[in-house]
């Protein structure tokens, strides 16, 4: 579990805190989506979970380790993988397999194990066979999956992704989302930060941030069905909500739904 206990964080020189009095528990084998407008503190949350930033007050505990404990900061970072928005800016290696190996190399993993970690991570993201490919020859979706493989090769318990699909086309997006679902099924705790409420609808739990505080925490349907809260948070309703609203306006009785499947199910009844 990653536990945020009344965490506040203010960037040096900033007028207001980026994260204010946030309490949150991130469980294993679950998918948590984090939504919110630009500057609502989503990226700060990601960096706090990974120990790259340390709270000003309150504390973040990763599997019982305080991220403020400098002695154990590498323990924290190897437990929590972080993937950023722009895949190009986080690939270090000159070929695919070397990039995947970068994290475990830093952990001092012996060479025989490096091999198996690299091939396992590439298999999870579906890039097997591209070991010797140069990163700039990959598609954007492949690059982002490579970045995920790089984080997975450290065998983390949790994976935090900061808008991983923002720069991808539909196909790349589908591939990356599929990888995230697989990770959750494999028992990892996945935190998916996104601007896309349609993507957030796939999560078990959604957290909406507003100016660094929790505006909503619960099942996706509760947020997506609340048009006024959505508007207040500056979030755009996913197409499925727009359709549900239109149906309601035309006199159908439609309960709160978050995915196409749920809507179809509701209409069949």
């Amino acid at each position, binding site marked *: 579990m990653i536990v945020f206990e009344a965490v506040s964080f203010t960037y040096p020189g900033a007028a207001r805190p980026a994260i204010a009095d946030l309490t949150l528990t991130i469980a294993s084998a679950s998918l948590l989506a984090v939504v919110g407008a630009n500057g609502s503190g989503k990226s700060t949350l990601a960096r706090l979970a990974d120990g790259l930033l340390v709270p000003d007050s309150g504390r973040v505990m990763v599997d019982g380790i305080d991220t403020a404990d400098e002695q154990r900061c590498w323990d924290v970072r190897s437990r929590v993988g*972080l993937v*950023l928005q722009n895949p190009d800016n986080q690939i*270090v*290696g000159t070929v695919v397999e070397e990039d995947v190996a970068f994290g475990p190399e830093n952990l001092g993993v012996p060479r025989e194990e490096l091999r198996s970690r690299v091939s396992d991570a590439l298999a999870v993201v579906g890039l097997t066979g591209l070991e010797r490919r140069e990163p700039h020859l990959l598609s954007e979706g492949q690059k982002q999956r490579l970045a995920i493989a790089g984080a997975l090769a450290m065998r983390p318990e949790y994976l935090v992704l900061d808008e991983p699909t923002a720069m991808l086309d539909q196909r790349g997006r589908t591939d990356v989302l599929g990888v995230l679902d697989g990770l959750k099924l494999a028992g990892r705790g996945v935190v998916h930060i996104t601007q896309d409420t349609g993507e957030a609808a796939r999560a078990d739990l959604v957290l909406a941030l507003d100016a660094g505080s929790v505006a909503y925490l619960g099942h996706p349907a509760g947020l997506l069905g609340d048009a006024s809260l959505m508007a207040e948070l500056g979030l755009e309703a996913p197409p499925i909500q727009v359709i549900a609203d239109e149906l309601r306006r035309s006199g159908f009785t439609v309960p709160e739904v978050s995915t196409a499947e749920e809507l179809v199910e509701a209409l069949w009844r």
Partner: protein
Amino acid sequence: MKVPVTFGQYVPVDSPVHSLDAKAKMGLVAAFTAALFLVDGPLGMVAAAAVVAAAVVLSRVPWRIALRGIRAVVMILMITLAAHALRWNPATVALVRVGPLAVDAAGLKEGLFFVVRIVLLVVGTSLLTLTTSPVALTDGLERIMRPLARVRFPASEVAMMLTIALRFIPTTAQEAEKLIVAQTARGARFDAGGPIARARAYAPVLVPLFVNLFRRADDLATAMEARCYRGGVGRTRLHESRMRPRDWAVLCLGTLVLALVGITL
């Protein structure tokens, strides 16, 4: 404009020279350079030239490319030749004389000796980058520099910097290409005017390119930290090129031959 997939000078063909370990090649280049400066007669130069020629043929690098490096030093060659060959009112018999300036046989011979030395140096050493991929070169460099870590030279960090530079060359080239297209679409011209006007035309490309590079560097630092990078201490490596018996044999024999050439001729 097409972004080259392989950059630098590397000629990707299969040859005995290409398959030689980078560290062995670096050792041989060092030995060759030393031998070239120890040689003090024309016979030695002929021997050194033979060594270079043999290496070029073995490497399967086309002669046109192997000799390309000479173009960069043409000015140096001409100055060298002139400095040695031209004499002011020589007492000896002049071959050519223009007023007080003259060229005599001894000076010409001396000048040619130095010119040949520079040419061989350029062709011989460029064979290293022509036959070794940048990645292999970086790995080899790190291994060679590793003993310097004892005197606190950050060998592994320098190698990491080189690797990152290599990694980002194609990415930056792609970005520059995009920026050129974007600025051209806004009416910028990169082909008009003299050299200064043309250089100025690139400012609207270079400024955003640099701004983006800094942004990339920030992101990359975060990503590297998140993946537990903390310098070279305690790092393991997925690939580490090892000297095979063949590499040792070639390095030792080659150094021996070059030492003989350098000392005796």
